[in-house]
């Protein structure tokens, strides 16, 4: 399998870019929901190739970024409970909570282990039967099924030392909350690829139905994203709105039924707090009654302390697509990847980190010798 090269072919990209330029007549504001898309768009320089009529906004689709400080503080506090091993995906390590990060807790002696899958968390629990292991469950519908599977496996094995801190969140409810707020007027939505592989493209049908906004599910390669933008433009210019898929190798309308069943068996929707958005009903996942004994919040006595927000940080507004990283007075100044003030600067899917890493700060930078016009011959 040619893993990525087929989806990065320059001549195909040029064809799509020319078509987008020809097709785009009216100004269109598109939001890519997913942080993975934001990173891909900036990393491959897709924004520079688009006509000025198209504005790309980054949405709330970065699980690390949308986790509220109060919830991050719970993770730090749990890591400090004597004896506890906290298992987490690597992304979480550097994220600042109210007072510190897991990285700092680790340096101070907390046993924080980076894992690559939830099953690694189970392995740690098996190898350390005398110690409680807490898996930090931060993510969207993409990782929730694997967390559910780990709970079922732990139950089957009768494990008494495995717990999860469930801070998983659901994407469609927060999208509805953003659209209901009316803060941002969008002409099209680039729907998340991996999330849709689980929940199916049908889960987005409420958007064209209730809000009249075109939706296209995209993959993460440059050609996927360009094709998605082209498909959105076709809908916009023809005045239609529906859900389409530009990522057929990964996404089906009905999604992954088995993964959905796993999630549904172990979790139930609950209200969740999103950074910048606030409490969104039915947008979180908590363990169902039957599996509550795995809930770290109930199993341990810990004090996360008072929550503090980062002064001057506008991560919340950036996550709502109301502002961009460049609008933040802290961006690339006191807030940078070495000294992140807010999570959007530290997460590998955060918009601020992507803007900082892949675009020259504070200028409308064009690389000499790489004129976009050349692509449009």
């Amino acid at each position: 399998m040619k893993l990525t090269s087929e989806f990065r072919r320059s001549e195909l990209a040029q064809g799509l870019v020319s078509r987008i330029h020809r097709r785009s007549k009216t100004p269109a504001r598109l939001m890519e929901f997913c942080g993975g898309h934001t990173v891909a768009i900036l990393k491959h320089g897709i924004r520079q190739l688009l006509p000025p009529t198209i504005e790309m906004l980054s949405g709330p689709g970065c699980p690390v970024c949308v986790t509220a400080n109060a919830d991050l503080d719970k993770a730090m506090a749990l890591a400090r409970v004597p004896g506890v091993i906290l298992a987490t995906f690597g992304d979480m390590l550097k994220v600042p909570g109210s007072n510190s990060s897991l990285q700092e807790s680790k340096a101070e002696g907390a046993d924080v282990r980076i894992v690559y899958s939830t099953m690694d968390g189970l392995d740690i629990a098996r190898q350390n039967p005398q110690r409680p292991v807490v898996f930090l469950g931060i993510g969207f519908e993409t990782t929730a099924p694997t967390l559910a599977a780990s709970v079922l496996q732990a139950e089957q094995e009768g494990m008494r030392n495995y717990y999860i801190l469930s801070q998983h969140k659901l994407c469609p409810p927060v999208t509805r909350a953003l659209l209901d707020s009316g803060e941002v007027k969008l002409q099209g939505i680039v729907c998340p690829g991996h999330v849709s592989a689980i929940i199916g493209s049908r889960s987005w049908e409420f958007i064209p139905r209730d809000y009249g906004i075109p939706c296209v599910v995209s993959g993460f390669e440059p050609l996927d994203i360009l094709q998605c933008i082209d498909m959105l433009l076709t809908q916009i210019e023809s005045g239609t709105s529906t859900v389409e898929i530009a990522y057929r190798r990964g996404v089906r309308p009905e999604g992954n039924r088995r993964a959905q069943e796993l999630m549904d068996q172990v979790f139930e929707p609950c209200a969740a707090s999103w950074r910048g958005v606030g409490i969104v009903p039915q947008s979180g996942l908590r363990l169902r009654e039957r599996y509550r004994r795995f809930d770290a919040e109930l199993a341990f006595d810990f004090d996360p302390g008072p929550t503090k927000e980062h002064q001057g940080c506008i991560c919340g507004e950036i996550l709502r697509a109301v502002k961009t990283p460049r609008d933040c007075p802290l961006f690339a100044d006191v807030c940078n990847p070495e000294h992140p003030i807010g999570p959007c600067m530290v997460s590998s899917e955060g918009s601020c980190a992507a803007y900082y890493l892949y675009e020259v700060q504070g200028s409308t930078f064009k690389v000499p010798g790489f004129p976009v016009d050349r692509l449009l011959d």
Partner: protein
Amino acid sequence: MTKKILLSHGSGGKLSHDLVARRFLPAFNNPHLAKLDDAAIFDIQGHLAFTTDSYVITPIFFPGGDIGKLAVCGTVNDLAMMGAVPLYLSLSFIIEEGLPEDELQAIVDSAQRAAADAGAMIVTGDTKVVPHGSADKLFVNTSGIGAVPTGIHLSGSNARAGDKVVLSGTIGDHGIAVLSQREGLSFSTTLQSDCASLNEMVAQMLEASSNIHCLRDPTRGGLATTLNEIAAQSRVGIRIEEATIPVRREVQAACEMLGFDPLYVANEGKLVAVVASEDAEQVLRAMQRNEHGREAAIIGEVTAESAGRVVMKTSIGASRIVDMLVGDILPRIC
């Protein structure tokens, strides 16, 4: 049962001497070391290059190498990047008690093979043993001395606008090969670390052209970090083209899976050469004739504008900046 290194092997007493006599002297076998004096004495003429480095790696044996080979090749390469001919090396071992003696022997033998291949001699060393938990199996510290031939002036500050940037081969092989063996992340791959001494290739390159301005090996921090160092030191811009940078399919696949960028993944047997434009092809061909440079490619050029920055033309024809690595690379959530 296999013999293990004990704390008393580091006491300086009989067991220490025994370890040196049994494990180190026969392997490194040279008259400087055999004297067992406090320091090695030798004559060198001309300009000297002197470098030091420390090696910590998990696991200590990995596909394509081990910490012994890595330590020697790394030190040799630091000398070679200055155009120096590597001559004498020191090797100090900080051993965690409990390390099997045969593992130590394998590492010592491998270090010796690497030194012999590079034409260098390990002339002095030291051993300390620390309690369990105070080190991770084995740390190696090295230093190296090399002779710089007359007329060679390589430096990271010598890059000039118009120079070409030549890369000696595929990037990320070492980092991904090592990662593939880590506990909790074993994935099956035939990928080998590129760990190798590059001094022979450097000599051939310097023979092919007297207009090589800068050589550097992109180890930790990867190609991106090395190019940024050169851009900053020389106060120039560097423009590279993504499509020209060789990356193995396995490396690309692992990077996609883990959310890494191959530009930031470590190499241990690659170099970047900044060469005057008119000599770039010659240097490229000299590299390609050497086994460590078969897949060498010209990946970009030095520019006067955007000084201190590295900019990459992406595979789809747009551009982006390529910053230094910040912190560790950590795998992503989804």
